[in-house]
């Protein structure tokens, strides 16, 4: 199976290239790769292989039917060459073939599906010698916020990922049910209010890959897209440094604006960015600590953590913020922000 898959893969790569060049001709490269048939990571690749395997297995049953139906209709037509045998009703070998082959196909498909469902479980961490990058995704109406908890930054419009490094996503929604999907990297997953889902992906190549919401959530649904920008490690460090240096402060006012119904372009206008194009990067820093958990569990957001820390503490703070060592919320901070959180809850309900 793996041999034939390899051959199919090679054949398809040429087709994917052709498709990609066609897409480039029609839509321009800036739109980014949008299909799992042109996979850019191990998960999408496995899903593409699975897809073609299922298609081929199904064809074993379907193709003879499609090909033989016109043949049989022609051969046994009135006045045709086929023998007329009105009392014929049984052929042991035909019966065995007609029942046996589909049963065998179903068994093979079932076994493969069972195994690959577990192998490709979105909650299962990817094997790699590198630590996965933690990214927390929050779906708003009609935009995505990407929080990098280890780096203490966030982004919108663009999801920046390092190449060849697994990414561990945690996802939630600040509003209705949405679905997070980067087709070129594979695996679509639901994001829900007050619930956290997980997803593990990896990008093998640098490039720009379209990401989108796949579950209708109102009139701005079609604008809820983002660009996945996969870069090398040095560029990723540049991105983090840039976000920390020039990022917008994600304060209470801006968070309130985030909860309003608007797309990324509208939000860029609120930030005062001119000429914002779809897929441009908006970076945020500082951001409230534990922002994702607060949104996911409707807990009070710790706005006091936005107070800028002296530069020499920055590194220490980064270490403290790693997920293995989360910052405990000081009890008084929670009390201070209690009424603010109630304000927030009120806004969400409207």
């Amino acid at each position, binding site marked *: 199976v793996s041999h034939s898959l390899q051959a199919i893969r090679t054949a398809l790569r040429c087709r994917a290239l052709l498709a990609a060049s066609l897409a480039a001709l029609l839509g321009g490269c800036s739109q980014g790769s949008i299909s799992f048939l042109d996979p850019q990571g191990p998960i999408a690749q496995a899903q593409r292989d699975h897809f073609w395997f299922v298609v081929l297995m199904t064809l074993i049953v379907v193709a003879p039917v499609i090909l033989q139906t016109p043949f049989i209709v022609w051969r046994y037509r009135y006045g045709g060459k086929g023998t007329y045998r009105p009392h014929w009703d049984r052929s042991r070998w035909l019966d065995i073939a007609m029942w046996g082959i589909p049963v065998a196909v179903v068994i093979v498909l079932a076994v493969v599906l069972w195994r690959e469902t577990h192998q490709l479980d979105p909650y299962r961490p990817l094997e790699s010698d590198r630590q996965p990058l933690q990214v927390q995704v929050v779906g708003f109406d009609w935009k995505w916020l990407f929080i990098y908890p280890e780096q203490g930054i966030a982004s919108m419009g663009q999801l920046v990922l390092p190449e060849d490094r697994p990414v561990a996503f945690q996802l939630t929604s600040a*509003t*209705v*049910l949405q679905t997070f999907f980067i087709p070129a990297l594979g695996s679509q997953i639901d994001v*829900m*209010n*007050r619930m956290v889902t997980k997803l593990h992906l990896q990008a093998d190549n640098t490039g720009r890959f379209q990401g989108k919401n796949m*579950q*209708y*959530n*109102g*009139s*701005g*649904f*079609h604008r809820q897209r983002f660009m996945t920008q996969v870069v090398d490690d040095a560029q990723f460090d540049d991105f983090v440094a840039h976000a920390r240096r020039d990022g917008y402060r994600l304060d209470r006012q801006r968070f309130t604006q985030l909860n309003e119904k608007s797309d990324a372009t509208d939000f860029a206008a609120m930030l005062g960015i001119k000429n914002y194009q779809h897929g441009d990067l908006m970076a945020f820093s500082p951001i409230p600590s534990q922002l994702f958990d607060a949104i996911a569990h*409707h807990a009070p957001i710790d706005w006091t953590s936005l107070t800028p820390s002296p530069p020499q503490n920055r590194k220490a703070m980064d270490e403290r913020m790693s997920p293995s060592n989360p910052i405990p919320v000081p009890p008084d901070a929670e009390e201070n922000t209690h009424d603010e959180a109630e304000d927030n809850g009120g806004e969400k*309900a*409207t």
Partner: protein
Amino acid sequence: VSDIWNVVFGRLGWDALPFWEAVRDPTTFNIINGIIAGGAAGMVVLGALGVVILVTWLGKWKYLWSEWLTSPDHKKIGIMFIIIAMVMLSRAIIEAVFMRAQQAVGLDGGFLSPEHFGEFFTTHGTIMIFFMAMPFLTGIINYVMPLQIGARDLSFPVMNQISLGLTAAGAAIVMISLVLAPFSTGGWSGYPPYTELSYSPDAGVDYWIWAVTLSTLSSTLTGINFAVTIYKKRAPGMKLFRMPLFTWTALSTAILMIFGMPPLTVATALLALDRYLDFHMFTSDLGGNMMNYINLFWAFGHPKSTF
């Protein structure tokens, strides 16, 4: 005056007219959408008027009432189911044409507003499943199956009339939503919390809930009717394994209807409780869980796909 208006019309206002936005804010875009929606509403009103005038002209009211609308004859009920399916299909096809046309030119906006497109795909999906595929299937089985097994009628002819009435009422609700807009934009699956009051406060989801609830009740009753007829009403000598293949598929469909339809009736009824009585079955706060809706919906949806 406004008090009386409220008592009589509730939330219903001029903005329910499908072309109201074009009157209020006559931009080219709004006028195009107003003409499309207004044209559709006009077709419903004119179509209904045309039928009334035609029946009156032919003097066939008594005939229509006593020979068709109150008839328990399975063949006539089957034909009426199929007529409903064909009327609804013609609307769904027009909607599909508009959606594809929008997609063909829609890269930078197109001619349909996002809300209008959302209503298009919700009504198209809802109609094709609940008011085209199912009435058509029910109609054909209604007509053919009793003839094939040698039964005089279905086991419960009056229940068959009730099924027809429920489906007709559901279809009427979907058609009325063209005249007094809007319809839901939540898709044919109507997932909460988007379809909850906090995110979809207008009447659209209510139209959808009532239409789907009536349709699923109708199909549950129909399923029971078909299954009982096939089990109990076969002519002497018509053993199960002598039944024609079509009756076998009718039996399989009926069994799926009996256990596939009630979950959706329950799901939409619970959603209605959320919207009308402030329950929190599927809300994202106060203990609601949207996944319960999705589980119920697909307890219906997977058997339904097998019809």
